[in-house]
């Protein structure tokens, strides 16, 4: 356990260092977003003054040490783009991203497990082949394309859903009305995200179940007269779920990174879009903060998965 924790700490340090270095290795400067687009009108001496203000004129190692020092103090720095502390920027976006990617992960896991188990059970049937083709097709669909098709169909043609945003800006809803409004905005992005991510869980579930259904204890359960559904969802599913749990934990770690493409297509105010814009705008502190959040959450869920494994699969020892 101790070595495990030590290795996590090492990984974290490496990740933090890369977080710092990678943005700075990209060509371009954060200047345009430090001062807005009007930087073209700024005299060079003010440019130098600005760089100094943000410590960007210091040598790289000095900036790095300062970054580590601030990090230890829990200070993620100041976002150039938002002109606010990075932490508060992240905290503003986090709920929306968790709502979007969390809901989608839940749906895609449940859907993938149920359909995957059924397909394995009916292995080789028309249902299995049909489901397999459908999910492979979904997997190959670019999410921005699917998103735009859904917008064109359900938002524009039928007018059932809004086209953009996470809530109606010109309405001041409260209570259930507000919840309903948020759900309506959530629907299309969640459907897009679910459809384009469900195949992973489905494929893992299906192949695991095909293996499990051949096991002796399944035959035993059948022969002792348990109903088919009980065999499937009680006896077989529990063991078939093991690899799915792995996939789920990996996905869970990436929930906070949001879904850049889907968030952009639907103008959803999540972390993925924020991160993408931070990269475009060379907002170093914001990039560092967002990547750190993602790194920590991936490491955390990995750690959690390690611990949970000993529970769900007693064969595993830490």
């Amino acid at each position: 356990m101790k070595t495990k924790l030590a290795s996590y700490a090492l990984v974290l340090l490496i990740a933090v260092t890369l977080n710092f270095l990678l943005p700075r290795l990209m060509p371009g400067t954060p200047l345009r977003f430090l001062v807005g687009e009007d930087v073209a009108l700024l005299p060079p001496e003010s440019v130098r003054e600005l760089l100094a203000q943000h410590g960007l004129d210091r040598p790289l190692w000095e900036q790095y040490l300062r970054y580590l020092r601030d990090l230890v103090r829990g200070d993620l720095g100041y976002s150039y783009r938002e002109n606010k502390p990075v932490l508060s920027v992240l905290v503003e976006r986090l709920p929306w991203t968790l709502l979007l990617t969390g809901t989608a992960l839940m749906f895609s896991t449940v859907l993938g497990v149920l359909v995957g188990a059924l397909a394995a059970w009916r292995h080789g049937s028309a249902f299995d082949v049909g489901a397999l083709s459908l999910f492979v097709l979904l997997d190959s669909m670019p999410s921005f394309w699917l998103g735009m098709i859904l917008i064109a169909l359900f938002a524009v043609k039928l007018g059932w859903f809004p086209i953009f945003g996470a809530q109606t800006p010109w309405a001041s809803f409260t209570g259930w009305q507000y919840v309903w409004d948020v759900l309506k905005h959530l629907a299309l992005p969640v459907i897009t995200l679910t459809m384009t991510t469900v195949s992973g869980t489905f494929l893992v579930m299906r192949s695991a179940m095909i293996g499990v259904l051949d096991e002796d204890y399944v035959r035993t359960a059948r022969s002792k007269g348990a109903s088919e559904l009980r065999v499937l969802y009680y006896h077989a599913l529990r063991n078939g779920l093991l690899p799915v749990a792995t996939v789920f934990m990996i996905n869970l770690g990436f929930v906070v990174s949001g879904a850049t493409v889907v968030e952009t297509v639907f103008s959803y105010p999540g972390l993925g879009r924020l991160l993408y814009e931070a990269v475009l705008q060379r907002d170093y502190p914001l990039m560092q903060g967002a990547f750190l959040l993602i790194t920590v959450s991936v490491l955390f869920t990995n750690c959690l998965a390690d611990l949970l494994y000993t529970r769900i699969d007693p064969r595993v020892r830490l």
Partner: protein
Amino acid sequence: MRKLSVLVLVLSGLLLCTATAQTPLVRLAIPTTERALTPYTYNTGFPGWYLLMLIYDALMITDLDGVPRPWLAETVQVSADGTTWTLTLRQNVRWHDGQPFTAADVKFSYELYQKVTHPRFSGPLRGVTIETPDARTVVLKLSAPSPTFDLTLADTPIVPKHIWERAQDPKTFENPIGTGPYRLTQIVPDQFYRLEANAEYFAGKPRVDTLVLPIIRDATATFTALQAGQIDAATRTLTPELVAQFQARPDIKVISGPGFVTTLLLFNNERPPFNDPRVRRVIAGVISYAELVRTILLGFGKVGSPAFIHPDSPWYNSNLSGFPRLTVDQARQALEALGFKDSNGDGVREFPDGKPLQFVLLTRSGDPVRIRTAELIAQAVKPIGIVFDVRALDSDTVAQLVWPDFDVCKGRNYDLAIWGWSAPVMTKADVRGLFHSDCKLGTLNVVGYANKALDALLDKQAQAVNREERKRLLDEIQKIVAEDLPFLTLFYPDLIFAVRPAVYDGWAFLKGEGIIHKLSFVKR
């Protein structure tokens, strides 16, 4: 009885009139965050500054022709030597919190911009002293005459002294109080801004009660939302390909007009062969500017002027003869005479030392108009034996190569690039910035152009006593630039907007800048 019914008719007619004159809500999509929308925190030049000026006012305002008129000031007088500007402020103007607006606010704001560097507002106020003999009078003393100082007066927002003097750090201070036609009532980060009409506005209550500005990042989503009626207008301009589709719809109105944003071909004036104006003239001579406008902009644009200044700008010299025109044969002969021959017969000319005339033409990715422009130019120079390799890189990388750290004094690292300057460069006709050989003055001279004779004229126009004198000098400057062609102004794309006129149709087109500005909402 009849009298009464006539009266009722007239009254209801009046009611109807006032009802139609006032629009309850306009949803205007913007593409990105403008942070707290204060003078120090707004993000983009367009639409950011224009949205800022819905909340704040300046002493002057540019009318629809781009000419500055008094606004918060009632009168503006300039001394004969052009260095003393005396302004009488409008009476009964109040801040959104009810406090009266006075000369002290003007002095405080201008001194704030002088003290705390602002990319846009600080530079033009350098060396200006502000005196306030009484609460309604402001006397501005300039260290040298500035013929464009009225544009500065129209550009610089005034903030309330009683609030901003409490600001610890103006760069992050968040407070929405201005004198403008709208109050900022709500910001939901990365989602929307909400502005409510200021009923007490000195120029009358604005014609739209509530302005909601949703942030829609994606261009396609923006125009889909417009077509579906989920927004009523967008600050994003329409691309020419979409115009026909939008014009065909009865519920959408397309508004277009001249734009002051430029599309340029930059030559690195320090690198051979582009250090030779004769080579630049040959290249200029084989590009068909009208074809660029026709095929790339589908006609929604104006052919460039060889001296940068837009024909719709008041500073344009209408006596220029345009770009040189050369046939392929004439261009080949000209290059031949300059010593660039194709000695190995591969279709590409070489320098006298044998290096081929092959150069990288940089352009930013994600901008199809510029990529197509670069490709058409590469095609145009190929027949005369010059190769331009078009390379599309992300816009920050291109900027870093062309204009390292936005500081011309740091040099440049490219052969050729497709580039553009935003509208303020044209509005001010900032020729000194564009062409001066001293990198401290020629802050936009990214091509490294140097012409000592021109430098003197550039200095003179910057300190001309009045507009007439400056116009005369600018005419001369444009003639020289049109000869030297340090870069090529290829075209000026038109600004095209799409709106839903049934919701609101009070939009006014400001020459070169578009429909997103104060005068689209305030009674003119």
